[in-house]
């Protein structure tokens, strides 16, 4: 087992430990919440007898640790319980909604990279120019304006009184409305998410590129007589973009929050809206499953980014940088 494998194993163990910790917290919600699950389901019909019967049916009378282990076993085998609110298996609900959110997240992530890295490189190459000021300024506005403001602004411009080009919200499945109809519902949410997340990537790409462009080896490449285009694109970009890989993984975290809010803005029936509905209506099985799933994806995305980073940068040793 070499040092890389040991590092990988250690990181995997940490991710699993974090997930176990989170699952305990998430499970505790059912125990701590005022009014237990049986009362919540029964609502107006929560007579003491009814509650007792349902508690027995749901297994709520058993000790907490037994319930927890049972719940974890169910989660691992795909039995995620039944939604109080939708009266459907949580697994089906989460998968259907999750795929829709995944479209949104993946397309946005691609758009973020496609916009921010070239923008950052341009800002660095023409640093201190008006173009640079414009790009950095716009990126700064992007961080300061919350996604629900940008999103609603886009609705005003493109789906309302000004130009009614795109649908104001909702979703049409690919199979029902064809690709154009499907994509028309995604355009505005994707623009919103992209605008929200490019700022940091632009700024980081710019700083890293400026630093790299001033380094010894770039000067050597220039002195060799290579044209500026080759110097920037072939030599500088490679090194300058390393830290952006890590930041991209961090962006997945903001994207999670962004997706939740953006889905609400555009009434997009994805995982985020499901989650907000679950919080509002205390739909606990849905809440538990969604939080665990999304946090799990985020943790693995981070792990993946760290591994990519170490892969690209051979100077990093695995032993000491385990954190």
């Amino acid at each position: 087992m070499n040092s890389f494998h040991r590092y990988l194993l250690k990181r995997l163990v940490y991710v699993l430990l974090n997930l176990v910790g989170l699952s305990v917290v998430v499970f505790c919600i059912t125990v701590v919440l005022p009014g237990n699950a049986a009362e919540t389901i029964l609502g107006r019909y929560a007579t003491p007898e009814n509650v007792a019967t349902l508690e027995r049916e749901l297994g709520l009378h058993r000790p907490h640790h037994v319930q927890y282990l049972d719940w974890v076993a169910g989660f691992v085998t795909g039995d995620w319980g039944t939604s109080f609110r939708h009266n459907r298996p949580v697994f089906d609900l989460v998968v259907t909604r999750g795929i829709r959110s995944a479209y949104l997240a993946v397309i946005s992530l691609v758009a973020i990279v496609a916009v921010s890295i070239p923008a950052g490189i341009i800002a660095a190459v023409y640093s201190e120019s008006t173009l640079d000021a414009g790009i950095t300024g716009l990126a700064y506005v992007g961080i300061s304006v919350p996604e629900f403001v940008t999103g609603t602004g886009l609705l005003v411009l493109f789906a309302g009184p000004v130009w009614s080009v795109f649908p104001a919200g909702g979703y049409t499945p690919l199979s029902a409305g064809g690709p154009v109809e499907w994509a028309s519902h995604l355009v505005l949410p994707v623009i919103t998410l992209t605008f929200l997340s490019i700022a940091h990537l632009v700024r980081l790409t710019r700083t890293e590129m400026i630093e790299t462009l001033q380094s010894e080896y770039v000067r050597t490449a220039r002195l060799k007589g290579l044209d500026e285009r080759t110097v920037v694109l072939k030599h500088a970009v490679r090194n300058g973009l390393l830290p952006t890989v890590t930041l991209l993984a961090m962006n997945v975290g903001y994207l999670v929050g962004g997706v939740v809010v953006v889905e609400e803005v555009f009434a997009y029936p994805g995982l985020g809206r499901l989650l907000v509905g679950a919080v509002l209506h205390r739909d606990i099985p849905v809440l538990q499953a969604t939080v665990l799933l999304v946090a799990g994806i985020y943790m693995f995305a981070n792990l993946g980014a760290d591994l990519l980073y170490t892969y690209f940068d051979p100077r990093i040793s695995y032993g000491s940088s385990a954190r």
Partner: protein
Amino acid sequence: MGSQHTGRRSTAENALRDRLKNGLCEVFANRRCAIGIAILAPIVFTTVLAPVIAPHNPTETHMGAQFAAPGGEFLLGTDHLGRDLLSRVLYGGRSSLVLGFAAAGVSMLVGVPLGLASGYLGGRIDEGVMRLLDMLLSIPSLLLALLIVALLGSSLLNAVLAIAVVYTPRIARVVRSSTLAVKQEEFIKAAEARGESRVYICFGEILPNILSPIIVEGSIRIGFAILIGASLSFLGLGTQPPTPDWGYMISIARDHLWSTTWYWLWPSLWLGLTVFGCNLLGDGLQDVLDPQSHVSKRP
């Protein structure tokens, strides 16, 4: 860092006072800080004075004057219930500002001692605290906030607590790494040799020397706390109606976009400017106080 000739207390105090004085001058000289303050000062001022300067009661409805355009009796227009938008925007800043400062404050109150203890004591305590904080950090911010709101119920106070929990680990980490750097210094060794208590060393010797990163971190966190708090209100999980709140106003304005866009514009403008001002101020403070650590920070 400190010459020990003149007695440690007075040296430390003088150094601190000098640094604060120079710091304040530099803060106002920094362009980003100056612009940030220029944006924030009027907003904070008018928000605090809302009861005095607001022309109407923010929850008073004027039937027959719904969706009034700006101008006349209602300077910024009215909403779907005929409530004065200017008054609502002015009052609406209160929950945002309270939330920003309170959440940042609570997370500092918990995060600073945690980071100090973890960094200075090291060993098992450090390991345990950091594992726990890492777990909290491994959950996306808004997701964690939602989880806590689900647990506690939706209200302004619970939103403050939720955001404080989200930011405590971030503050504790900054404090811990700064503590680790200062811990090696001679004057800490001297204090240990004098037999000072650990509590004194943490709060009397280390803390004054790591104020810069703490101030920078805190100022950045206020902006983000306002942002995430507004998001919670937008989702209907923060401030509860009829209390005016920027995030909640924007969420309702979305349903009336065809009738009026002013309703959406004003709270968006105020919220955007506030966060923009906080970000500028935070970045400027970082330039002034902590120029080495220009790493990107976000929620």
